[in-house]
């Protein structure tokens, strides 16, 4: 019986393949699958099969019917398509024409970088804080342990509005404003992005640029916590293979202080023009909050410790996107802006 089914299948397939037009195919179909068709006839003779064999043969016969149905359908499609050959050609489109223009703009690369920095630190439990662009001498300098007439002030040349007011030279005043508001409440964990202004203007300096400040104050913040936080940041920002290097440095408002380098992203630390053959790129300044700063902001430096860091957004964007000229950020040339997505 199974043998007969097999023969029927082969025979049917040859006939289906050989059909020359839809009418012929229809006739073949009736002869095989119709009420008086070959398969139906075969099934009628199922009674002659032994009861043990019967379910097996029945199953085979049914699946043959399904397969043949599909074969007829496929052949039918093929025959129909063949009929329309001329029509297809007349409906042909030129797939090499450009797509319909989508209307979509893009955020500024500095915004993209600041958003990324914010997201990393929000994920680490930091809160976003802001401070004014026009600051008082007190918040910008005094409270951050830059005494008047001190050489430390030479590190940042300021634009003054009056002797008392100036354009902030760093985002660090936000540290003081946040701590003052919250003291003696703990913990403090903030990230403060914003514009800063320094009296520099050349290929590597812009009179206005952007920084992101970070601050964490609690009963037990350590220098090791600072290093861990920054390592995590560097890896999120520049890739999981990143290494960081801390070098002792000086900022009036931190002690101990550290400059932080990442392994050069251009040469993977091998040494190149961008990193002056050192294999390292300086990306931020950091340190443990100076006890005098904690005190001015309303915390007892014997009971709490903190760390702070500040990074230049332009610097990070330049490294990340391979931008050579700082001034491009503020010219807003569309030929530049469109490279971040058009």
């Amino acid at each position, binding site marked *: 019986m199974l043998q007969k089914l097999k023969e029927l299948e082969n025979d049917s397939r040859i006939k289906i393949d050989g059909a020359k037009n839809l009418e012929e195919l229809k006739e073949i179909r009736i002869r095989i699958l119709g009420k008086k068709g070959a398969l139906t006839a075969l099934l009628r003779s199922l009674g002659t099969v032994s009861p043990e064999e019967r379910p097996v043969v029945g199953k085979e016969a049914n699946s043959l019917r399904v397969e043949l149905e599909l074969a007829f359908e496929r052949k039918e499609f093929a025959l129909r398509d063949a009929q329309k050959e001329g029509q297809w050609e007349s409906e042909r489109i030129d797939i090499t024409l450009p797509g319909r223009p989508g209307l979509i*703009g893009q955020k500024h690369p500095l915004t993209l970088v600041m958003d990324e920095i914010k997201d990393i630190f929000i994920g680490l439990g930091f*809160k976003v804080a802001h401070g004014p662009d026009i600051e008082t001498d007190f918040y910008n300098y005094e409270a951050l342990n830059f005494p008047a007439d001190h050489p430390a002030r030479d590190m940042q040349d300021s634009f003054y509005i009056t002797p008392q007011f100036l354009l902030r030279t760093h985002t660090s005043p936000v540290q003081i404003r946040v701590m003052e508001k919250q003291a003696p409440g703990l913990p403090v964990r903030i990230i403060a992005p914003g514009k800063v202004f320094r*009296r520099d203007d050349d290929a590597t300096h812009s009179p206005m640029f952007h920084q992101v400040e970070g601050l964490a104050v609690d009963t037990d913040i*350590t220098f090791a916590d600072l290093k861990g936080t920054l390592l995590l940041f560097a890896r999120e920002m520049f890739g999981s293979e990143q290494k960081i290097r801390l070098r002792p440095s000086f900022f009036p408002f931190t002690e101990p202080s550290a400059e932080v380098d990442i392994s050069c992203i251009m040469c993977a630390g091998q040494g190149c023009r961008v990193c002056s053959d050192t294999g390292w790129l300086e990306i931020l300044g950091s340190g443990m909050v100076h006890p005098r700063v904690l005190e001015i902001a309303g915390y007892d430096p014997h009971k709490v*410790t903190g760390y702070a860091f500040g990074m230049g957004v332009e610097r990070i964007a330049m490294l990340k996107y391979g931008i050579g000229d700082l001034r491009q950020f503020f010219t*807003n040339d569309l030929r530049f802006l469109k490279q971040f997505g058009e």
Partner: protein
Amino acid sequence: MRVSYQWLKEYIDPGMSAEALAEKMTLSGIEVGAVERFGPDLPGVVVGEVLKLEPHPGRDNLTLVEAGVGDKILSIVCGAKNMKVGDKVAVATPGSELPGPRHIQEAVLYGVKSSGMLCSAHELGLELGAEDEILIFDGDAPIGEPVDRLLGFDDKILYLELTPNRSDCLGLINVAYEVAALTGNEVKIPPVYPPEISKSVDGAASVRVEDKILCPRYTARVIENINIKYSPLWLQMKLLKAGIRPISNVVDITNYVMWEWGQPLHAFDLQLVKGREIIVRRAENKEELVTLDGVKRKLDSDVLVIADGLIPIGMAGVMGGENTEITEKTSEVLIEAAAFDPTNIRRTARRFTLPSEASQRFERGIDHEVVMIAQNRAALMIAEIAGGDVLKGVIDINYSKAVPNKVIVSPERINQVLGMKIARDEVLKILRRLRFTIKENEELIEVTVPLRRPDITLEEDIIEEVARLHGYDKIPTTLPSGELIENRESEEERLQDLLKNILTASGFYECISYAFINPANLVRLRLPETDWRMQAIPVQNPFSEEQAIMRTTIIPGMLKTVQHNLNHRELNQLLFEIGSVYEAKSLPLDELPAEKVKICMTATGMIPEPNWIAPSREADFFLIKGVLTTFFNRLQIDDVEYLPESEPFTHPTRSAKIKIGGDLLGFIGQLHPEVAGSWDLGQPVTVCEIDFTLLAEKAKTVPRVKPVPRYPAVIRDLALVVPREISALRLENAMKEAGGDILTRVKLFDLYEGKQIPEGKRSLAYSLTFRREEGTLTDSDVNERLKQIEATLYNLGAALRG
């Protein structure tokens, strides 16, 4: 600070190469910006001895020189005249190379063969001596020795980039102490006691300090019978390595000692000091002094001067006076080594724009004990090199109260702050290497810090010393733990991000422009004096007019951007900026100004950019209005009004003021053609500026969702011909009123004016959606309501079409 590696080695052996030392110093807090070889390789340039001099047969100004260079004797034609037989000179032998680069070959000069060249210092690349004089070495220079080696050209210069707290390293001795802290090696102090003659300084000069705050210590020595001349070559070379131009022996020695000890010194020609008297005092108003650079300076009582009995002879700590300058006639000098008030020196140096090596050191603070050491060291060197007789004794007017800082340190706190374990023994070892004095007091350590490190006053300063010398690389990496902080991103922060997303999804590119602008640009916007935006906050010390005031509107910055892009053939632009403008409550500022966040948009050109498939329209008022509509829909703000009012810089009849619930949000408008012209914008530009804070105040940032309608809608179209003066808003309101609650949406889908429409009229086509919340509408319900709508419109003067 330039540190010659070979010079440094006179005080300490670092036990490693210059490069390794630079790396080690950088990683422990003294940043070495670069390590450079001092001079070029000079292959083939060797020390030669002048054996014979003869006149050139053809040219009077040339000399024939026979120079022995060890293995051979070369005859050389030379243009200089300053050598004599027996002199040791630099001979560039044939095939040698000089800086430039210059290749030296045998040549025939006016008929005489010349096998090489005798070199001047300039030809060797040194800023030394006269250009037409050849360099003459000390008599003991070995013949045949390569000149680059003799001159120390293979020395390495370390460029220290010192932070303000580490100005101690402005002297080599203190750099040596830093190297000692890194290596544990010994510091060798050079001899500092001069031989004195029996004649006492007391009768030879006197010193009076009138302001002991500004001058806490003044020491003076007198040296007689000095022979002023050029310094020996080795001394000149050391100064060149330090980046200082050699002048004459006494002046060179004061600079040498400054480089060695970090203590600036000054030498006066004592015979020119009237009354042989030094008075340290504030200048009198209107007093004048011609400083060593030849400039006449007008002084006043803010300036501390060194004066003689009559007039100022130096600006203390900044620059000496021409009237007592050391010259070749000088035979008797008074050497000043003093300490001055850092702040006063800093102010004076800045005021007269006279930053000098001396003022740089004084304004960072110097070690009051070193004042005397440097004084004696200089006297010793002058006696040895300039042949002077040092008078007995030092005048020392000392009001200094400088005492070493004492700091109590707890090793436990060091570990607490650093987040790691450093053993007590290691802490003690580091402090000893720093040459700090230690007294152990049970758990605590009492540290006495030498005067050379005034930056160390607190326990935290000691923690940094321990951490940096132990190695920042050994600090572990951990993360802070602690309580959760709620609301990590404020509503406003999120809203701003949402608006940026809407803007970019609408095709706008974000710009960031300077927060300061040119005041002339506000005038170009034709703002009247009374407009608050004219009351911009001026910057006191801008670079240029372009950055002279804080912006009160983002528009000028954006127009500059539009102009820039048009100039670069980017004709189709959708731009926005979200940023602060600055509003002074009063001028001049006596409190912090309001910083208001504004959203500024500009649109110009064909949008989308002309293309083969989708139609483009000129960017106009309605493009930006469409974006605002998206804002308002997304933020569920519905009481918005557009009033037909313009800004001074926008088109009188293509502008609107926007209000939310009666509060002014901002404006949209096509730029006034005159204003567009003054910015050289050759095509229409539409601008918009709205207040972010007000928008945020009115916004509901989380959408409230209504159920999706359950019953089908009936849609009917209506085409009207209407007098132009009837606004679309009026028509829409009339339809809504007449349509009642079942008219759920009125949408304008076509607008036409021109041919086939009577003059003064326009045709508008609306699609009206009717729906009932409960139950299906019948045709007759809708027809009835449509009739009412048509009647109302007819009364307004609208005619129904087709």
